[in-house]
């Protein structure tokens, strides 16, 4: 084996196989320069190892913060039964919504709508209903008016008849009184010249 300082360094830092380590150890037994160099490297390694780790001034304790806790959806996602329940609930909801919702008709199958025709039909129906309503109202008003007129006429006839009968009675009474007066005068005239 030839002298290689890099091999000695790899030996010191533990980057050699057992076979390679044996070869180095055999070499330094017969090579004074490599032996001395290996001593220096080992001493350097030992000096470095004398530097002890320091204790951490304060513990890293932020893991208890809420930022580290899983979010609700992460917990939900990781929970198999909960996810199954949520999926079933979503499916049930979708079925209910679909049941109440009118199915979509394809656009191509939609019949063309003649709005003018519909408007005319609606207008005719409205006019018809309005005419019927107006006619009914007019008839009702006429009937009511005729009934009232007949009632008033009847009352007037009764009143005229009563007045006529009263006048007739009064005339008969006056005529009877006149006849009595005439008879009395006639009697008086017949008795006068005889005295």
């Amino acid at each position, binding site marked *: 084996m030839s002298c290689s*300082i*890099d091999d000695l*360094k*790899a030996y*010191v*830092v*533990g*980057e050699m196989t057992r076979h390679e380590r044996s070869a180095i150890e055999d070499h330094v037994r017969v090579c004074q320069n490599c032996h001395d160099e290996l001593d*220096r*490297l080992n*001493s*350097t*390694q*030992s*000096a*470095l*190892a*004398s*530097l*002890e*780790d*320091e*204790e*951490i*001034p*304060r*513990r*890293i304790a*932020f*893991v*208890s913060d809420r930022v*580290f*806790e*899983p979010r609700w959806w*992460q*917990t939900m996602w*990781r929970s198999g039964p909960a996810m199954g329940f949520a999926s079933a609930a979503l499916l049930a909801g979708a079925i209910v919504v679909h049941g109440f919702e009118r199915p979509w008709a394809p656009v191509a199958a939609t019949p063309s709508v003649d709005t003018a025709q519909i408007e005319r039909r609606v207008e005719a129906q409205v006019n018809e209903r309005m005419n019927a309503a107006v006619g009914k109202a007019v008839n009702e008003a006429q009937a009511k008016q005729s009934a009232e007129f007949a009632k008033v006429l009847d009352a007037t006839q009764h009143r005229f008849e009563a007045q006529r009968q009263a006048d007739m009675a009064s005339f008969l009474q006056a005529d009877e009184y006149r006849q009595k007066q005439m008879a009395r005068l006639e009697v008086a005239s017949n008795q006068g010249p005889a005295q």
Partner: protein
Amino acid sequence: MIFREVELRDLIAKARRGHVEAYNVLISRWEKRVFNYLLRLVRQREDALDVSQDVFLKAYQNLKKLDDPAKFPAWLFRIAHNEAYSLLRKRHPEAELTAEPRMAESSGGMFPIESTLAVRSALERLTDDQREAVLLKVYQGFKFEEMAEILSCPVSTVKSRLYTALDLLKQTLAPVNIGGVE
């Protein structure tokens, strides 16, 4: 080891499902390593702590993107690497983070005797890339392939950075070595 791998997979799987406590356990296992890696990389305690928190926050938020739970350590350190370099770029937007290594100064007795200070000083003399290579290999024990994933570079680049760093550290720490660290 196998038990720990199984446990790691289990913790990651639980954390992915939103178990906060499982992620708490993961953090408790890795926070010290991540903090020290970042501390030696960004070299300021408060910054290292803030970045550590950001790292674990991002790790949690992106845990589902981790394909293989066995790669969690390298994946976590990749996030830490990205966060650290984001901070370093903010600090020195004009600096080229992959600059050529600074040459070590003469080591003739000018470093502290105390080995910890010497090692810290030696590490600070490295470029950010070199220092990170040492941190990932020597202190975190990652393999070259894992380091390549963390740093998003070829294995050859990882080796180059690490071996250059070891050369510089060897020179810088020579007085310490002579003083006998072991």
